[in-house]
């Protein structure tokens, strides 16, 4: 079992590292991402809910509220949950998407880089701010 688990962890770590490398080449260093994030947490998505949002700038959009059960806080205020408001979702037969955003699934374990958006929290730099985590 240990060998199997170790192999799986190594395999996942390798793919994660590959992903991170692609991200770094994409434009923002991990250091910059870390510095810019107000909160960095590790946790598991416990629920999602699609809502209509109007933000401070007046943008009106469909968003998915993603509740992350926080198991570890790396930066920022420690709370048991972090609710992310991510543009995208389906309401009344209309779907909104933002190509740079990804809506995680319930059960996904993530390392989240978040910044404040008025009273809400959003993911910093879209997909680059949601890293799959195995720890």
């Amino acid at each position, binding site marked *: *079992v240990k060998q*199997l688990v170790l192999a*799986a962890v190594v*395999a*996942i770590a390798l*793919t*994660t590292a*590959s*992903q991170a490398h*692609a*991200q770094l*080449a*994409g*434009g*923002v*260093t991990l250091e*910059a991402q870390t*510095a*810019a994030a107000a909160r960095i947490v590790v946790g*598991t998505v*416990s629920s999602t809910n699609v809502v209509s949002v109007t933000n401070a*700038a*007046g*943008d*009106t*959009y*469909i968003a998915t509220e993603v509740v992350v059960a926080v198991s570890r806080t790396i930066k920022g205020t420690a709370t048991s949950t972090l609710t992310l408001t991510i*543009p995208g979702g389906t309401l009344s*037969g*209309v*779907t*909104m*998407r*933002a*190509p*740079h*955003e*990804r809506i995680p*699934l*319930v*059960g*996904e*374990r993530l390392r989240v880089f978040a*910044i404040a958006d008025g009273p809400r929290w959003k993911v*910093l*730099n*879209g*997909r*680059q*701010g949601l890293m*799959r985590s*195995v720890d």
Partner: protein
Amino acid sequence: MRPRARLVIATLLLASCCLVPLSAYVTIGHVWGKASVPYKINPANDFMIASADLIAAVQAGATQWGTTAAQFAFSYGGTTSTAVLANDGQNNVFFRNDTNGSYIAETWWWYDATNHLVDFDTVFHEGLVPMFVGSTGCSGGIYITLPAMHEFGHGLGLWHSDDSTAVMTASQGYCDPRSTLGADDIAGVTFLYPPSSGSSGTPSTPPATTSVPGQPSAPSPKNSGSAARHVNLSWTAGAGATLHDVYVGPCTATAPLYAINLTSTTLSLSTLNALTAYCWRVVERNSAGDTAGPLWTFTTRKN
């Protein structure tokens, strides 16, 4: 925060971590139901760029998409004072003095139940880097036309390309003066709006190959069944799935992610705890997105 070497146009990450090489351009099955799509520009900006110059720079980005053999073109519909992202039936491009992470610009779109796009809006975030028009004089910033081309590419249904030389790649360098599409961009728009798909005004059919995957099914061991402590999980892949993630663990907690990017629909587990209920879930994936399957369970036997 100003990255030294490269800048993000709309997003920084290519479609999730794929170990399997993808075709360069990426679509997710959404197109306009007409061959000519109007847009408006709000030329208000904080860069002291004259309205006419800014409009010309943005238009140059839009116009490029109409120069291919594809049955598609954007049509300029004049100026607007609108400066919000909203599904208001009007496709707007505007500039806002703010930042959103490292985005130079971003595009949001809306589509209906038939997978046809119904609205898109693009915002340029002025707070990240200086922006310039034309193809000379840029210093430490970006020329507007390249990200405009990129964002209009989103507006017609393209996502980020895996071709780093494409306009639709996720990031661009400083002061890149390009104002024409690359071969991959042209291939992408031609795929979405084939030249033979009819005359102007004829609705395009959303590509059928880029829908999100279907649900996984037929689990083995059977759901709620029993299994040996060494068990081979298997299932029937959801339609269109190219990769599979598996979450599995004792049912006493949320099943953790155990394996990602599987290309086969089997997973071997050994020496599990005896007489223990295990929960597992398969997430089917492709370039269009993810589809989580139902939570399945099995209970291990004593031996």
